[in-house]
């Protein structure tokens, strides 16, 4: 278990930090949020990231990827969250790529991975179906009919789905005695997909997808490399950990801006950062951020090495990231006072992003219950 970064990883992190600060400051996000719902992402920033190889961070070298591993990918996600960079990084380069890597090699799979790597295709992953995180509940069905599958069902709040080229849909085969879910690579131009963009408080791109008799050829039904349960668990764990990375990035940024504010804002003739009431709250938040840093590194390293306690590490990091983000965000707004609730200040944008991320891939209560089960109580 590696809890300290190696030199290569430190270089990648610093490079990512400089890149997002220069090419995608929060101002870029503010521009993107003015765009129509269907186009809420920055094509220019994403193209730059593709050139740097970051769209292929997880993809092995023999498929045209940079193969940074989960740790390297996580580091880029953390830095990208620090400026709210609006790109399909997490959805396509991290989660969809991870889903494909859990499938057996095939023409369709390898083409998709190459297309993600060279930036020619945006791919999203549609598993969760409702408003709450419930990975066990899959009602979407794929019915075999004349060498083709016909998909019916609904997936809500699918990220980047309005402009994605391909959607990896998790569906249950029917009729079949085996109720294990399978993965289908669905072209978004296909007939029968009702694609309705939805607007959430974080201004990012989501859509509700309804599949009505969407025809998919047998070749686009991807085979899991291991058992469906194991593969899906691995994808969900990785997605959960990378979502926690985003929360960590948002929290770090907001905390650092708040400490700066405590040092510059004066009231009652002194810097407000000299008041003990605020010092103790800031110091407590710092202790929680340091714990989160450790647990993020632990979870990334567990995913990278595919260790046996990966599920424990994933639930731990998501619960802690949720709670720490909540603490840091609400304290930061409060410490900024009135300006903290204005749209002009960036803090509120981070708060809104974090509020959505806390719900995606599981609330703290969900993950504490799962952590308890995994530990045998």
């Amino acid at each position: 278990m590696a809890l300290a970064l190696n030199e290569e990883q430190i270089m990648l992190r610093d490079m990512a930090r400089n890149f997002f600060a220069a090419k995608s400051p929060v101002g870029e996000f503010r521009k993107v949020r003015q765009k129509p719902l269907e186009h809420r992402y920055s094509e220019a920033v994403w193209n730059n990231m593709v050139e740097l190889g970051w769209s292929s961070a997880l993809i092995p070298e023999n498929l045209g990827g940079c193969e940074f591993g989960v740790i390297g990918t996580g580091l880029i996600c953390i830095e990208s969250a620090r400026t709210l960079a609006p790109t399909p990084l997490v959805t396509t380069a991290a989660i969809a790529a991870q889903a494909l890597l859990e499938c057996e090699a095939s023409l369709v799979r390898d083409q998709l991975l190459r297309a993600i790597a060279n930036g020619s295709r945006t791919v999203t992953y549609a598993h969760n179906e409702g408003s709450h995180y419930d990975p066990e509940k899959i009602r979407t069905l794929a019915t075999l009919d004349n060498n083709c599958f016909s998909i019916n069902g609904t997936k809500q709040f699918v990220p980047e789905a309005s402009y994605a080229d391909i959607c990896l849909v998790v569906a249950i085969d029917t009729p079949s005695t085996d109720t294990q879910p399978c993965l289908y690579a669905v072209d978004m131009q296909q007939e029968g997909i009702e694609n309705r963009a939805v607007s959430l408080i974080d201004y990012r791109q989501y859509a509700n997808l309804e599949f009505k008799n969407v025809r998919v050829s047998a070749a686009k039904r991807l085979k899991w490399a291991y058992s469906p349960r194991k593969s899906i668990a691995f994808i969900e764990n990785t997605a959960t950990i990378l979502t926690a990375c985003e929360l960590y990035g948002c929290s770090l940024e907001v905390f650092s801006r708040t400490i700066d504010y405590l040092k510059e804002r004066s009231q009652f003739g002194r810097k407000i950062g000299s008041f003990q009431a605020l010092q103790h709250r800031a110091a407590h938040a710092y202790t929680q951020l340091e714990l989160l840093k450790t647990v993020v590194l632990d979870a990334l390293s567990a995913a990278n090495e595919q260790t046996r306690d990966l599920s424990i590490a994933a639930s731990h990091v998501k619960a802690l990231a949720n709670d720490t983000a909540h603490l840091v965000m609400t304290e930061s707004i409060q410490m900024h006072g009135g300006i903290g609730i204005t749209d002009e200040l960036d803090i509120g944008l981070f708060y809104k992003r974090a509020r959505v991320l806390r719900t995606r891939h599981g609330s703290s209560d969900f993950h504490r219950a799962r952590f308890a089960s995994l530990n045998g109580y």
Partner: protein
Amino acid sequence: MSTDLSEFRDETRTWLESNCPESQRQPVKRDEVIWPGRCQKFPSEDGRLWFERMRDKGWTCPGFPAEYGGGGLDNAKEKILREELTRLRCRPPLTDLGISMLGPALLEFGTDEQKREHIPKIVRGERRWCQGYSEPGAGSDLASLQCSAEDQNDHFLVNGSKIWTSFGTESDWIFCLVRTNKEGRKQDGISFLLIDMQTPGLKAEPIDLISGESEFAQVFFDDVTVPKRNLVGEINKGWTIAKTLLKHERKMMSELGAGFLAGGLTLAQAARQYLNENDGDQIEDPLIRNSVAQHEMNMRAIALTGYRTHQEDQAQQIDPNVPLIMKYLGTSEVKVKDELMVDIMGLQGMGWCDDSFNQNELRANRELLFNKALTIAGGTNEIQLNIIARHALGLPQE
């Protein structure tokens, strides 16, 4: 790894396997700790054997120089020994502030004569040490301490009082912070003095605590004569030594909770035993289950953070601010566990003394009561947060 080190590991493993009695390879309970000095008692024959065998190799203090009777191991070998001790779950053969606090300070700040006099006795467990820092009027504001040592040409004359001295009534010697200058900045008039507790005029009285124990004492000094050779470091420069020692103490305290609690019921075991209606591993009460998971996550995060600092240390990228948070986090979380345990046991967990209550139940509320000290001693939580705000966050001072 060099052959020298791997040979050392093999030899150490073999030696420990044949010399550490089976009974000394389980978590240690509070009343089984082996202390040094005139009051030394062995809870068992195995405990005595284990202590004597380790003592004879100097491994009660493996990193202390061999010329003063220590184990003389370099960092790499000391680490291997600790790993092998952990692997076999060996108990500490001897526990004392001399080993963990005074010894390292003497090695850093003491004269050769002081080292020769005190270090071998620490290694051999012949003297038990206690610490005289806090005073009735100097708690969190430690540097305002008043217990004075007057220069009488050939000796110091000590007058005043120290409080919250752990095991003050059972100890042989006390290392003290005393005031040697009343002028100027309060930190600049403090000296570090070693005092034999048998000296006339010195008296230690136990303090009864809410837990029913009296681990702490108040120590009174009434014209106590202390030889000049017992001054460690320069006169009026004791505050530097004190700060170094406080770091050791806080590190020790951040690791302490988990160690002493080992051996009792886990929260999950207790919840099954006291709350579940049916057989089964899952805790049936969802709120208690949530709280247990929350606590276990926090303990896991704290343990991993300790491990992270260790790895960063080895990669030479340590963040000096991280150790600052460990005492605050570790001691706070121990208190969370204590409260939760008593909640799970209900009134059955609040028995004071009676055979209606088993050892786990009596112990649960003694831990609950005693461990309130953890976030006070060695720098209160509030002092820790002040330090973090100043040093880690660079927030302005008033």
